[in-house]
């Protein structure tokens, strides 16, 4: 670049002139502002001063009433309960200490109430009402009313609080509301939330926040010089939130939670025809009512630090190795691919070895299964058969086929933050771990171990699709949305995903028959859970390793810490020919799928098919077959139900609607 001295000088002069103009421009704009302000503050001062003095009409937002949440039959899951709170306007109280002391003689005020009051006091303006005690009893309200003249600036206010009448029941699906945070306020329309101080934090309460919240209203009120409201002049009513009817069935949800009992685990039950989530339980749960008006730190930390992780929604966020529950799906892949496995029998000696390698891939059954065909491999859950099947299919094919059942991708349920699970492939491993894929990894993918992960929801959705012969309804939890003002009902139609590309009905039939024999067959891994069954149920057990057992060691449940014990899994559907319900059960550290998870699934399906309270009254508890054992077990489970929920009979009693008598 050649720059002459003359150029430089010219450039410098040009820049200087532009800077001078810039400064002049800034002064000009500031002058414009000054003119405007002189106009407002000097010329029109009288006018605005009059307006300001007569500014006695204030616009106050009126919060809308939050929509209610019901189960599919109209059982109330979330409602708004009126309550009375004792509130205090700081500027109107001359001696705060004396007033508090005098109030304590009338109304019980705990030290924690007082602490919270002082904390709130700091962030409120002096003429704003600050709550001192929430949830006054009728007696306390009456007692205060008599003494009210002694306490200027103190008053009882009627408010609405969110309440979950069934406590912990279905808490992870329903979610809860809690005080809105500063960050959340930035994420929503601030005008619409003026006057609202709660917002949905998890579950349906969060996912359907926009529908549940409604639209803010406002009223013009006349105030005096101290800012106190004198009277209401006009009012634009708020638009209340919409009511939601979930696909959940409260009694089935209760049955599912009872069936898991004190175990940590998850259950998802889906209607295969529509994708309706009938029950979705993650145990242990917690009581959502604790969160509504602020949970104390101690309780919250206890919940958060509990090794059983009650706040964690296992159904959506828990990712487990699916274990042998993948076998029916892979069997279908093999049949659809016309891979000869569909016809051939193989010999299972109890182990499998890749050509030219020393490593032994073992079968869960030490002596082996002997001669096995496809059906028997599913019924007895033969690992060796599926090692060979996986090797013949190849990892890419398995990956593609399993994706078609929704493994490794979110199901698209209408709840926030669903985990995607993982269906591995060589490309995934290259991209995420920068390593090559080993043939041995193909083998263990064939029995649902290794990298493979699935959420209980994904398992339930996949088995629902399988039971419906490939028709895939997207899981959903909200069935209909009703408008409380004009009474319109918006039914959310079921959504369907691309069907599984297996068109030959015989192939579906073979796999489903094998799954039926898992429960009904003499050698089925879940035959014990099939005792006394009155309908035909298909299922598949699975066991997910929590830690690896060395080559020459043996897994011995008795010797292992409960924390390291295998997860038990079970997927099931019934009735086999015309499925009405599909279930996935995961029992964490429960041991094997057949002993821990299958009985849970059986209880849930029994409840759904034999004993639905809105078709038969709950009193007519008819469980067929092996009564004494099952009853005793159920009673034991009932006794052990979660500490923080109403007792089971209470739940059932509350769930009965007036009309059902």
């Amino acid at each position, binding site marked *: 670049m050649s720059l002459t001295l003359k150029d430089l000088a010219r450039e410098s002069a040009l*820049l200087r002139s532009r800077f001078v103009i810039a400064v002049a421009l800034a002064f000009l704009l500031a002058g414009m502002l000054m003119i405007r302000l002189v106009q407002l503050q000097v010329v029109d001062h009288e006018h605005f001063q009059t307006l300001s003095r007569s500014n006695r009409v204030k616009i106050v937002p009126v919060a809308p009433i939050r929509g209610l949440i019901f189960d599919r039959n109209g059982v109330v899951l979330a409602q708004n309960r009126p309550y009375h709170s004792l509130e205090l306007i700081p500027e109107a109280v001359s001696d705060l200490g004396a007033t508090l002391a005098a109030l304590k003689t009338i109304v019980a005020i705990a030290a924690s109430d007082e602490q919270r009051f002082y904390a709130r006091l700091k962030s409120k303006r002096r003429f704003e009402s600050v709550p001192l005690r929430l949830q006054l009893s009728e007696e306390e309200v009456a007692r205060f009313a008599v003494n009210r003249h002694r306490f200027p600036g103190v008053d009882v206010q009627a408010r609405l609080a969110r309440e979950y009448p069934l406590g912990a029941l279905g808490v992870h699906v329903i979610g809860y509301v809690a005080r809105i945070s500063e960050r959340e306020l930035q994420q929503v329309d601030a005008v619409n939330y003026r006057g609202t101080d709660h917002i949905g934090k998890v579950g349906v309460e969060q996912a359907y926040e926009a529908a549940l919240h409604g639209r803010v209203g406002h009223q013009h009120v006349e105030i005096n010089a101290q800012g106190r409201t004198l009277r209401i002049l006009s009012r634009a009513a708020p638009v209340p939130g919409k009511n939601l009817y979930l696909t959940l069935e409260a009694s089935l949800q209760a049955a599912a939670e009872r069936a898991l009992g004190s175990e940590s685990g998850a259950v998802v039950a889906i209607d295969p025809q529509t994708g309706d989530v009938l029950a979705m339980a993650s145990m242990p749960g917690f009581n959502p009512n604790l969160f509504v008006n602020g949970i104390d730190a101690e309780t919250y930390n206890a919940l958060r630090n509990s090794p059983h992780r009650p706040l964690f929604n296992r159904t959506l966020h828990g990712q487990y190795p699916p274990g042998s529950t993948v076998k029916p799906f892979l069997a279908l892949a093999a049949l659809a691919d016309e891979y000869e496995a569909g016809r051939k029998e193989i010999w299972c000696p109890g182990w499998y070895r890749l050509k030219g390698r020393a490593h032994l891939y073992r079968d869960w059954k030490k002596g082996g299964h002997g001669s096995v065909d496809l059906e028997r491999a599913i019924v007895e859950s033969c690992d060796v058969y599926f090692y060979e099947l996986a090797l013949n299919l190849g990892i890419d094919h398995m990956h593609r086929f399993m994706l078609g059942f929704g493994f490794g991708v979110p199901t698209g349920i209408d709840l926030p933050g669903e985990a995607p699970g993982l269906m591995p492939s060589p490309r995934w491993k290259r991209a995420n771990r920068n390593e090559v894929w080993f043939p041995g990894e193909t083998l263990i993918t064939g029995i649902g171990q290794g990298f493979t992960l699935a959420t209980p929801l994904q398992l339930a959705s996949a088995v629902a699709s399988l039971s419906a012969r490939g028709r895939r309804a997207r899981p959903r939890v909200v069935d209909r949305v009703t408008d409380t003002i004009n009474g319109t009902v918006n039914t959310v139609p079921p959504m369907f995903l691309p069907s599984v590309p297996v068109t030959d009905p015989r192939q579906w039939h073979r796999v489903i028959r094998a799954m039926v024999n898992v429960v009904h067959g003499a050698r089925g891994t879940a035959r014990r859970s099939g005792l006394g069954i009155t309908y035909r149920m298909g299922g598949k057990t699975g066991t997910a390793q929590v830690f690896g057992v060395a080559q020459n060691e043996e897994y011995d449940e008795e010797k292992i810490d409960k924390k390291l014990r295998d997860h038990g899994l079970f997927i099931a559907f019934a009735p086999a020919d015309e499925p009405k319900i599909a279930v996935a059960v995961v029992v964490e550290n429960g041991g094997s799928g057949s002993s821990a998870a299958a009985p849970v699934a059986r209880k849930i399906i029994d409840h759904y098919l034999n004993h639905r309270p809105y078709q038969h009254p709950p009193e007519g508890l008819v469980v067929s077959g092996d009564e004494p054992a099952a009853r005793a077990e159920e009673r034991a489970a009932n006794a052990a139900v979660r500490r923080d929920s109403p007792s089971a009979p209470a739940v059932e009693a509350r769930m009965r609607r007036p009309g059902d008598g």
Partner: protein
Amino acid sequence: MAKSSNAQRMHLDVPLLLGLGLLSGAGLVVLYSAGGQDTALLMRQGFRLLVAFGIMVVFAQIAPRHFFHWTPWLYAGGIGLLLAVLLVGDIGKGAQRWLRLGSFNFQPSEMLKVLVPMMVAYFLAERPLPPSTGRIITAAVLIIVPTLLIAQQPDLGTALLIASSGGFVLFLSGMRWWLISAVVVAVASCAPLVWFYMHEYQRLRVLTFLDPGKDPLGSGYHIIQSKIAIGSGGLHGKGWLNGTQSQLDFLPERSTDFVFAVFGEEFGLLGIACLLAAYLFVVTRGLYLAMNTQDVFGKLLGGSLVLTFFVYAFINIGMVSGLLPVVGLPLPLISYGGTSLVTVMASFGILMSLHSHRRLLSH
């Protein structure tokens, strides 16, 4: 001149520092009143100010040649982040502006407020000034791309600021007057087109500017109440903590975008004159520093950053006093909030670096 003071060794400019300190101090005073005498709020803002001044000091230490060499990369990175926001950003208030980084949210459009003038200055400083028409067109593309990306989020206020920060570089570089007038005419004739592409809420804002009686809970109410607040303040104001409009809760957003109305109500025209004088002092001193930097890149960048700061304040005051439509920009250094504070102080840090490193550069 030979002895260098502490401030010079720290690459700081004392008069500018005093001006900035004065404005932030006034900000804290009025925030105490606007926030209902909430000390916790005041502490939070004080902490943010400390952080922002710290950032300014850090930026002042970076030698201008580093800014210069990194400019194209930083600009490209900024554009990439804007694209990322459009693809994966968080949706807040119906607009995608935030990118989540670990636990805190981050707004890439803030960075572009500095990066756009930096890139345009970098590009124009390559050749002798004034720039040719061809180079002006290229520079215009460098400005328009990020502007459109931010307008997509949609964040019209920031998009306009960024466009004008780039425009200031072009103006300072000696773009010919006939071209400047042509651009102004072209923009004005595009106004109906802009209306066509505006979002519903943006049209609503323009309509309420024309007729504030609509939308009683929204921006129309804001403007009515803020004009009453300022007008009733009169010449001397109602006195600190005595503004009825703000203390009786008539004035919305009085800690953030409408803090100027509280100032006007409580301190009157005289107070406002002092405040505007303080802003003008910062701007004049800033432009003086920018003028006296070593190279063309520094002059263009420094000048543009200072002018953008002024426009920021001008738009806010104009909007609060009913001269301009509500665009939702805070009053720099006064309004409660941290995001824009950091950008403003970072750009003053850059300015101090550009100015104070010139002796070191010359040998």
